[in-house]
């Protein structure tokens, strides 16, 4: 090798029979001097846009060949970067093994957070040649389970295919995700665990001065450290074992493994606690190489052996090198705790065969801001083989949600192409709701048009089928009812999607203060439609139920039922008043010049309205709503009239009244409490604004401390 290095580079490519290498540097230099300023010589198909992806040699930000360690895996191995055994001294070997385990965990968390596998987990050179580690049972078994775990998680994220962020996540660049026999990683891990367990028992027996009946070779040579090292290894091995079991349990179809998964989650959490406890021991025995640093990726604080992030970077580079900061061990453990807690929430779900319950569960789950891996698991649980939880056909879920009796579940109408299309829309909705909030909002906005088109198509099919009113039959009547109910439900669902789309804008911080007036106004008009459609749907369901039980009721009760507005609709009504109140308050602040209006030199409020609600307008959600409608509604708002018809007081009153109906629903109760709080405070603020109309020192601020998207107004003297 040294001899090769000394040879001139040009000699490495021999001249062909009819050609000889020649140095054309002077010719190139002369030719370049003849070029005009800014002139490029290029082929006919060259274009500058494509060239933007080019790398630039010798630029540190782009050239992955600069100032790096090794140029190939073989070279790194030959130079002892990843030795097997890690050390000839057993104590050192064990200590370094634990460092490798810790750093791999930190790399794994960093990978889950959105960086590439090649530059995180597979920066470990021990993983890249599976057969190399076979003589070191502990290292070999650990590498096997790491590869198997990465493969399992890749499979979940790839299968969920959320199209949001997993491109980098799932890029494997030909890395060895399966070594030979990795599928048996658990049996080997169990064997190693058993060995270390026996070693732990032996050293404990030894320390209590009882005779050692077993002939157990110790883990390493220092008896004083034996117990500490055994425990430190065992909790790390057991975490791996239970984590892999967890993934396999959750993989079982139709949620059959969820109960077992919860047990493994509890075990993982327990082992993480032991991993944390082992830190003090490991730091104390780090041989002075340790640093007390919050960024440490190992419990001991030592740099781990066997990692080189730049190798894979170079092997796989069509992209510039990115310096990745590997999470600290503490941050990695926090990440895994969060992941385990999120997976536990998923495993605790009851798999209620109700579309509404599933939608509510996803919304609630997303509030805890789960990461990609947890969200992918939820999506696969909800939708398998086009069925809810892999077992409940989507059409029967739709009929149930639409308030239709169970006998309609198997009706032939589900073969209608628009019904099939509707089923697909529901599947897409469930999947989209499992994505990150940013992607979710974009997709919800776009799917509104699909829902609208499907509604129109179903409506046309409905009218076409029942144009001949003269014909009647039992099946005809059932079809009529099915269409009616489903059409009402589709409209309600469309407005529900629109409502969520608008709310997510607050979570994502897409609105500026100057947008709030129009956003709350639009929420107000969408909520009116949502309440209207929900009321219609519930009334139809109520009628269906009433006909079945009419013989059991007297006329008085029937009459009473007709006049009751459902609690769910009243809940929406309180929000309608709240949104309207907020919109009018912002309008009054603008009209009375207490908020400085935005004045762009390039466009007006009209263009902002168009942009903010473009996707809803295209979907006619709702119909006949435009900027002009918005201006007409708000241009005369002032504090004198607002105080007279106080929308906030109305909202507060309804929220208070409707609470008793949701005694068994803690989530809705909590939401009503929040609505009530915002309404109460805003009503007070409204009165202060009116009373202080002539006081220029009064300023109005808005905060979201009581509700994630209904603002609370605060009036202060500045």
């Amino acid at each position, binding site marked *: 090798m040294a001899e090769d290095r000394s040879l001139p580079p040009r000699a490495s490519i021999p001249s062909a029979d009819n050609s000889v290498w020649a140095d054309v540097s002077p010719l190139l230099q002369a030719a370049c001097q003849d070029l005009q*300023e*800014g002139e*490029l010589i290029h082929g006919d198909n060259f274009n*500058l*846009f494509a*060239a*933007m992806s*080019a*790398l*630039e040699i010798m*630029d540190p*930000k*782009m050239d992955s060949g600069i100032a790096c360690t090794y140029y190939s895996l073989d070279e790194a191995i030959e130079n002892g970067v990843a030795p097997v055994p890690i050390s000839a001294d057993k104590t050192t070997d064990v200590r370094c093994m634990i460092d490798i385990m810790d750093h791999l965990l930190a790399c794994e968390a960093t990978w889950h*957070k*959105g*960086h590439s596998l090649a530059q995180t987990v597979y920066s470990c050179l021990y993983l890249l040649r599976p057969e190399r580690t076979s003589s070191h049972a502990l290292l070999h078994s650990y590498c096997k389970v790491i590869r198997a775990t990465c493969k399992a998680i890749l499979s979940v994220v790839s299968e969920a295919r959320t199209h*949001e*962020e997993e491109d980098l996540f799932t890029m494997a660049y030909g890395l060895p995700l399966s070594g030979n026999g990795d599928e048996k990683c658990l049996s080997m891990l169990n064997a190693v665990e058993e060995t270390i367990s026996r070693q732990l028992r032996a050293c404990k027996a030894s320390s209590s001065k009882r005779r050692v009946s077993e002939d157990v070779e110790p883990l390493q040579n220092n008896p004083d450290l034996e117990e500490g090292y055994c425990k430190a290894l065992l909790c790390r091995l057991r975490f791996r074992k239970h984590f892999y079991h967890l993934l396999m349990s959750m993989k079982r179809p139709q949620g059959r493994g969820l109960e077992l998964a919860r047990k493994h989650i509890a075990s993982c959490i327990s082992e993480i606690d032991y991993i944390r406890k082992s830190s003090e021991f490991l730091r104390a025995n780090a041989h002075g190489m340790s640093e007390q640093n919050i960024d440490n990726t190992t419990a001991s604080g030592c740099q781990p052996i066997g990692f080189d992030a730049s190798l894979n970077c170079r092997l796989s580079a069509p992209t*510039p090198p*990115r310096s990745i900061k590997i999470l600290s061990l503490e941050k990695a453990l926090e990440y895994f705790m969060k992941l385990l807690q999120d997976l536990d929430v998923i495993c605790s779900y009851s798999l209620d065969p109700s579309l509404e319950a599933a939608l509510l569960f996803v919304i609630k789950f997303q509030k805890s801001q789960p990461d990609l891996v947890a969200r992918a698991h939820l999506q696969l649980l909800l939708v398998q083989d086009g069925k809810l939880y892999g077992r409940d056909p989507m059409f029967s879920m739709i009929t149930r949600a639409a308030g239709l009796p169970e006998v309609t579940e198997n009706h032939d109408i589900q073969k209608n192409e628009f019904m099939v299309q509707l089923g697909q829309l529901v599947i897409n909705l469930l999947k989209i709701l499992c994505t*990150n*909030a*940013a*992607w979710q*909002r*974009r997709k919800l906005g776009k799917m509104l048009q699909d829902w609208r088109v499907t509604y129109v198509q179903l409506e046309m099919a409905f009218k076409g089928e029942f144009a001949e009113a003269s014909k009647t039959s039992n099946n005809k009547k059932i079809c009529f009812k099915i269409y009616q109910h489903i059409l009402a439900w589709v409209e309600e669902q469309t407005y529900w999607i629109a409502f969520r789309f608008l709310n997510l804008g607050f979570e*994502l*911080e*897409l*609105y*500026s203060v100057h*947008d709030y007036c129009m956003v709350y106004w639009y929420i107000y008009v969408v909520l009116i439609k949502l309440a209207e459609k929900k009321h219609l749907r519930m009334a139809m369901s109520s009628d269906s139920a009433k006909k079945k039980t009419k013989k059991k009721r007297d006329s008085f009760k029937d009459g009473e039922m007709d006049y009751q507005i459902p609690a769910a609709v009243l809940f929406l009504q309180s929000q309608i008043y709240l949104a309207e109140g907020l919109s009018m308050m912002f309008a009054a602040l603008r009209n009375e010049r207490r908020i400085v209006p*935005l*004045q*762009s*030199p*390039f*466009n*007006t409020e*009209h*263009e*902002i309205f*168009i*942009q*903010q609600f473009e996707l809803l307008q295209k979907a006619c959600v709702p119909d006949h709503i435009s900027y002009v409608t918005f201006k007409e509604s708000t241009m005369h708002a002032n504090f004198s009239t607002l105080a007279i018809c106080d929308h906030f007081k109305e909202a507060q009153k309804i929220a208070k009244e409707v609470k008793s109906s949701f005694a068994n629903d803690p989530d809705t109760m909590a939401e009503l409490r929040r609505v009530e709080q915002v309404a109460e405070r805003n009503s007070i603020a409204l009165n202060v604004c009116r009373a202080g109309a002539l006081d220029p020192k009064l300023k109005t601020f808005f905060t979201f401390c009581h509700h994630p998207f209904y603002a609370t107004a605060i009036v202060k003297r500045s």
Partner: protein
Amino acid sequence: MDRDEAETMENVEFDASEIEYVSYGGEHHLPLVMNLVDQELSEPYSIFTYRYFVYLWPQLSFLAFHKGKCVGTVVCKMGEHRNTFRGYIAMLVVIKPYRGRGIATELVTRSIKVMMESGCEEVTLEAEVTNKGALALYGRLGFIRAKRLFHYYLNGVDAFRLKLLFPRSELHPSLPMMADKYESHMQSDHGDAPFKE
């Protein structure tokens, strides 16, 4: 990616009239743009990236000079994008000692005017959600936050896609007056806007 703190100078004192704004004028300006951008932004751009923008749309790039020293630049492009003629702000840099003095706003305003006069229907760019200076600057010019892009930058930070929609058909009659009024009341600003396609 933390930006270099190479500039330890305090803010430079100067009159706004001392800043000279120049449209991109040729190859002699290219190294100035490259040095500014490379110095301030963490994303790596090859020379072909710069050539792509300034060769095809030289009229959309501007440089700001103070006493012969280049202290800021904006680089843009425009073209058809899904049935919309769209302008795009690719890079905006003002070096630290000159920030907060309206230079970035002036650079961007000039390029937007050219894009508007060239028939663009809208202008877009991406900015880090944490870049308050840029968000304030573009917000004042009428950009809305059209989208949030999850983990857009490889350091894990999200981006906002900012959009400015021009009025349809012709300008509103009141706009020229607003523009004049606005320019006489320019406020503080600064910021930079790395781009991704």
